[in-house]
């Protein structure tokens, strides 16, 4: 479970994230949507403890990412926007290194490694050098790295970017399969991805949450695209738009 509470992040005078709050429940996949530069990556970096928030906080399974940082970070698997690979290392050595860093016990490393290599379709790539992999495989190694310690919370920043359609299909299947009783937050700007695998959607525009809703509860007959476009254009016209208003408007447009 991830609880984001009134998160604000300012870089000097520029406020990237303004008072963002949302909740991702265990056993569900939350799709984090927003146009480029909306503050998705910043929010995810704060959730994973990479950068501090100017105000507000994040609870990971009840642990505060700032005051109980180490314990909270232990629970997270994180795939940043760019897969954090060491270009000179071989895939296997790299994953072993990450496993040790993330506190996987010595006895369990071999089985954990074998498991993620298989799950991410990397078994044949184990001895390749990370820097020489194609974008798709780099993305998979990034995913394997996030999964190796079997974390209860997964934060994935654009996990399917740069993949070919078949790989996208596989990775989506994988994420869906992984969710189980984990908490998964994934950011994307591919809308069909959200409708296919997510349980809940949070739309962020210009640093603010403009919509937080379960997919099931979205008005019938409306496409996510309409909701998304409406939410982000609404934001531009009127800062005070609430999620309900956005939904009503879209709903009205279709009836």
């Amino acid at each position, binding site marked *: 479970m991830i609880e984001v509470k009134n998160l604000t992040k300012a870089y000097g005078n520029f406020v990237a994230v303004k008072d963002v709050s949302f909740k991702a429940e265990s056993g569900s996949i939350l799709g984090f949507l927003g146009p480029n530069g909306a503050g998705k990556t910043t929010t995810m*970096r704060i959730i*994973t*403890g*990479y*950068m*501090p*928030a*100017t105000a507000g906080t994040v609870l990971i399974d009840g642990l505060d990412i*700032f005051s109980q*940082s*180490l*314990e909270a*970070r*232990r629970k*997270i698997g*994180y795939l*940043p*926007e*760019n*897969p*954090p*690979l*060491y*270009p*000179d*290392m071989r895939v296997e*050595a790299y994953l072993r*290194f*990450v496993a*040790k*860093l*993330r*506190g996987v016990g010595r006895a369990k490393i071999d089985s954990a490694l074998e498991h993620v290599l298989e799950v991410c379709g990397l078994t044949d790539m184990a001895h390749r050098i990370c820097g020489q992999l194609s974008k798709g495989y780099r993305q998979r190694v990034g995913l394997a*790295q996030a999964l190796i310690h079997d974390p209860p919370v997964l934060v994935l920043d654009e996990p399917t970017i740069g993949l070919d359609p078949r790989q996208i299909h596989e990775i989506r299947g994988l994420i869906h399969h992984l969710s189980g009783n984990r908490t998964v937050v994934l950011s994307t700007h591919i809308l069909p991805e959200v409708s296919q695998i997510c349980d809940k959607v949070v739309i962020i525009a210009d640093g603010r949450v403009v919509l937080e809703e379960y997919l099931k509860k979205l008005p019938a007959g409306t496409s996510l695209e309409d909701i998304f476009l409406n939410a982000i254009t609404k934001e531009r016209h009127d800062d005070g738009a609430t999620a309900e208003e956005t939904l009503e408007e879209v709903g009205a447009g279709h009836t």
Partner: protein
Amino acid sequence: MKNSLTIAGKELAGYFLQPVAYVVMTVFLLLGGFFFFALLRYFEMTLAYSAAMQQNPEVLQQINLNQRVIEPMLHNLAIVLVILVPAITMRTFAEEKRTGTYELLLTAPIRTGEIVAGKFIAAAAFMLIMIGLAGIFPLILVAFGNPEVGVMFAGYLGLSFLAISFVSIGLFTSSLTENQIIAAISCFGLLLLLFVISWPAQAGGSSYADLLRYLSLPDHFAQMVTGIIDTRDVVYFLSVIFVALFLTQRSVESARWR
């Protein structure tokens, strides 16, 4: 501690996955070999000259291998390190920041102190390997002459302390930037400054001159090279290492400050 060793292992292996480490070692050992050869030739010449001049045996006794070969060689190698250490340490943090692997390190459940310690252990170990390989020169002297082994050992110990102090400063400058060139140049500047810092002290005998003399790295190093292992010099090197690593840890930790 376990996490530090994990990082140290990966870093040390990483040095040898890149050509930079081999180039640095080769340059260090080639120059070392050249100094050794040149000084030895000069030593031979002085000896032959003095003998030919029929000087008294006491003067001849004073021309020894330690003073004429090992000492100047170590001083020269210290200056070579001023240039080579920045090339080794510039990557440590700057590269991770640029490629995004910094995000992996800082979101892993490890303390920033452990990251700094790991990188320090690896860089220090690399220096010790390199200086250890340069131990071939004293071995040659032991095989063909009779130098004082203890004095040479103290000199190499001094060079190791010097190199490890340099490495700590290099880690600090690398932690400040994501640009490797900036990291290298500022490290080089700081190291060179520590080399020349006592120059203004020659002018006067005030307390500030004492301070500058105390800060001067070659003064402490020169003591050890002559075979004197003084706790004051050891404390000086340990202080440089400690202060630089402390600043590095603060610099890495500052990413978490609100």
